[in-house]
């Protein structure tokens, strides 16, 4: 029965995943009790909805969170990994922006505002990507060194690498198929479906990678200075995300004002959206990711002064 009244294995899996969406303080304080409750009362579809609503409320009202459960070092770890997860979704939107605008070179040459906004997006994307790499590198090196000594961490590190390898292989297959089918294959039919599947797989692999990195980060002892570097990097990336979202919004407005013929063109897999609609969706995802990352870094900075005492 799938009317939401009877417990199902899918509901149980989704409920366990929903528990992981709770803030760290809730997971540590109530996680075990909630898992025990889910075993006593096998979850239904409405249980999953209830947990998702509870997780959202817990994030929106941090004042109700159990106090003294999460130390400053773990708070900064949680902030850094949250920014990384936001970056994955932001990068997906950024890729959508790139695909939407890749053939708009003429418009960029003719209209200065379109050109400047496009240049700003590209420059900021380079800065943000470099900062993600530079901020994550010391933590990755530390986690790998720790994994050499700690066998229990090796599995977590391997789980972080696996989605990257899977997505790399998937991308190679998609590129090979696209080359075999010739140009313009991604606009309709099997090409459109493949593009959507590739995008969903990318987000799934990115999320899985970040969650495994997060687990490795929490299992690795890290000096306060390195955590501070990660927090500064996270703040820079967040600032870049907000600035890119603003530049993309300017681009969307400028292309509508100066090149309305381009703005009205069909775009994306199956030509489902116009260029304007695609850019609006892109900006919404970018703003949401930037806002969530801002909340995460603010929580990190609140405890930054206490890092030295850990």
């Amino acid at each position, binding site marked *: 029965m799938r009317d939401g009244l009877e417990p199902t294995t899918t509901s149980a899996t989704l*409920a366990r995943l*929903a528990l992981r969406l709770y803030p760290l303080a*809730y997971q540590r*304080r*109530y996680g*075990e*009790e*909630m*898992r*025990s*409750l*889910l075993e*006593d*009362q096998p*979850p239904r579809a*409405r*249980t999953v*909805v*209830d*947990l*998702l*609503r*509870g*997780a959202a*409320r*817990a994030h929106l009202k941090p*004042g*109700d*969170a*159990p*106090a003294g459960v999460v130390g400053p070092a773990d708070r900064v770890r949680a902030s850094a990994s949250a920014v990384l997860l936001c970056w994955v979704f932001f990068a997906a939107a950024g890729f959508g922006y790139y695909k939407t605008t890749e053939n708009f070179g003429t418009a960029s040459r003719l209209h200065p505002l379109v050109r400047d906004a496009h240049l700003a997006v590209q420059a900021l994307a380079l800065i943000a990507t470099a900062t993600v790499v530079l901020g994550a590198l010391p933590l990755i090196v530390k986690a790998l060194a720790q994994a050499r000594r700690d066998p229990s961490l090796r599995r977590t590190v391997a789980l972080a690498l696996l989605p990257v390898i899977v997505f790399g292989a998937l991308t190679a297959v998609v590129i090979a198929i696209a080359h075999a089918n010739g140009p313009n294959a991604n606009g309709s039919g099997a090409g459109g479906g493949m593009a959507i599947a590739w995008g969903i797989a990318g987000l799934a692999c990115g999320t899985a990678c970040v969650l495994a990195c997060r687990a490795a980060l929490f299992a690795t002892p890290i000096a306060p200075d390195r955590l501070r570097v990660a927090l500064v990097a996270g703040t820079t990336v967040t600032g870049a995300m907000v600035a890119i979202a603003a530049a993309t919004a300017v681009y969307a407005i400028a292309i509508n004002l100066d090149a309305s013929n381009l703005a009205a063109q069909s775009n994306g897999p199956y030509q489902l959206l116009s260029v304007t609609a695609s850019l609006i969706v892109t900006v919404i995802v970018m703003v949401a990711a930037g806002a969530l990352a801002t909340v995460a870094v603010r929580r990190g900075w609140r405890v930054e002064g206490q890092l030295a005492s850990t």
Partner: protein
Amino acid sequence: MRYISERSNDPGLLVLTSLADGPKHGYAITVDVEQFAGVHLGPGTLYGALSRLESKGLIEALPAEERRRPYRLTADGSAALEQELQQLQTVTRQGLDRLRVAAVAR
């Protein structure tokens, strides 16, 4: 029946009422509330309420029994529950009295 007010169904009030006769863990609270109020508290709602009540000092956690942790009312929690129920009782009494008077007048 369409509810005019959800005050009596407030998860915090239901949890406090459930704990009024002694400590209970999450599952026991859920079963108890379902029995006396006919309301099913999902785990997200239940632990959201427990967290709010705990942060306000109205309930406190007792040492865990295996994976379950019982909760009990604090003195502040008992006082807050009594005050809330008396307010509800006043409203209930007033409402019923007025309906009775109106029915007689008709």
